[in-house]
Structure formats: C-alpha cells, structure tokens
C-alpha cells in the first residue's frame, strides 16, 4: 500500500496561510455542509461522524473516534 508517510511535511503545511485565510476556509467549508440526522446530544452528522461535535470537554488530543459516535455516553439518535 502506497502511504508515502515519510513525505508528509506537516511543519510547513500551514505556513504562508494567514489566520484569516484559514478562518475563511473553515467558514466556507462549514457553510457548504449539509447536516443530516444523527445525534441530538452532540449533533453528529451520523453515528460515525464527529464533524459537528460540540461536546465542550473533549481535548484536541482526544478528538478522535474513541470519544465520539455510538460509544459516546451522551449519544441520542435523532428521530
């Protein structure tokens, strides 16, 4: 499998992008989203997506699949 992991220059990825450019990108990205179904507790797009997660006590380090979705104790499927 071609993963090319050694070629990912993470340190330089955001260089040259202003904070305002990044915020504009994020705003445009979120504006184009189409929320559907999911969880009323944390507003997931679906049980396997954390795109709209707003649980306030998740650290960025923990912001991964293990703290969200159907394993979340607050998961409430949206009718």
């Amino acid at each position, binding site marked *: 499998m*071609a993963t090319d992991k050694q070629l990912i220059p*993470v340190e330089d*990825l955001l260089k040259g992008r202003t904070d305002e450019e990044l915020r504009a*990108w994020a705003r445009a990205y979120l504006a184009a*989203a189409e929320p559907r179904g999911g969880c009323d507790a944390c507003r997931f797009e679906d049980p*396997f997506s954390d795109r709209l997660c707003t649980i306030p006590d998740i650290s960025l380090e923990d912001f991964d699949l293990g703290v969200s979705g159907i394993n979340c104790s607050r998961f409430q499927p949206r009718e």
Partner: protein
Amino acid sequence: MEEVRNDAFHITAAANMASIAGQGFYVGRRGVLGAGAYFDLGTEATGWKPARQRYPDLPLVVFRCEVALGRVLDLDDEETHARFQQFQRELGQRLGRDETLRLGRGGQLDEFLFELTSKTGMTYHTIKRTFVTDGQTRIAVRDPRRIRVLSVCDEKGEELPWPPTSN
C-alpha cells in the same frame, strides 16, 4: 504496484442505485474521514446499522465493489496518525478551539489534504482508518473512477441486476 481491494462494501438506499449507475458514487459526503465515498473493508456486517439510521424508512442494498486504492493516507499507521494529530494541534492554535471542533475530524482531514496538495502537489486517493467504535476498517475514496461495482444485493442477500434495469 497499486493495491486493489475487491472486498469493499457500501450500503445505501436502493433509491440511490440509479444515480450511482449514472454518475458513480457520490464522493462529496463529508464523514469522519473527510469527503469521499465510504466503504467497509472485508465485511458488510457493520454497515447495516448506520445505513439504517441514515435511511430509516427505505429499503437498503449492499454494493460489493473493487477499489483501486491509489495513494493511501493510512491513519492506522502510528506515524501518519501522529503527524495528522500534530496538524490538528497547529490548526487548533491557528483557528481557535471552537472553530476547529466545529470542523470536526473530517473537516480537519479535508484541510490537511487540501494543504498537502496545494503545497506539495501530493494527492491522496483514499483515506483509511480502523474505527475504535466498532473495530471496522473503513476507507473514504475520493475519486469515483477508482470504484467498480462487482455486485449488488438486497437486504435478503439476493443479487440484483447491475446496472439496474429501468421499468
């Protein structure tokens, strides 16, 4: 040599069969692996529940597909995942915590891939991750031309004509 998987399963509403036959799989869906057409590898078993939640009142079908993976961003690889987490932290510092959380992991991945492509010309065709929620390995395929339908079955396991016949 490029890896090709012939055990990629995608469950969706039967009503979507015509558009898939005509236009290919929709790769604009934004999930936790960013935008792409989502497949479970190796088994269809774990795909039924989320599909049922997505389409609670519609009959479902399961596609078995062959996927030419191309260049894979493998988030099961520790080093790759650590690099993505490093990017997440940097993005969080630049965008702020709330905005970064709103983007979600999928949005952060899309931004990661966007920056990779624009800065290095490097394009990933497939994102791969084994979900801790259910232990299932999933892929998000970003180019529908890499997907070929092998078979389609209904919920009872009966094979359906492909491409679908129009009445």
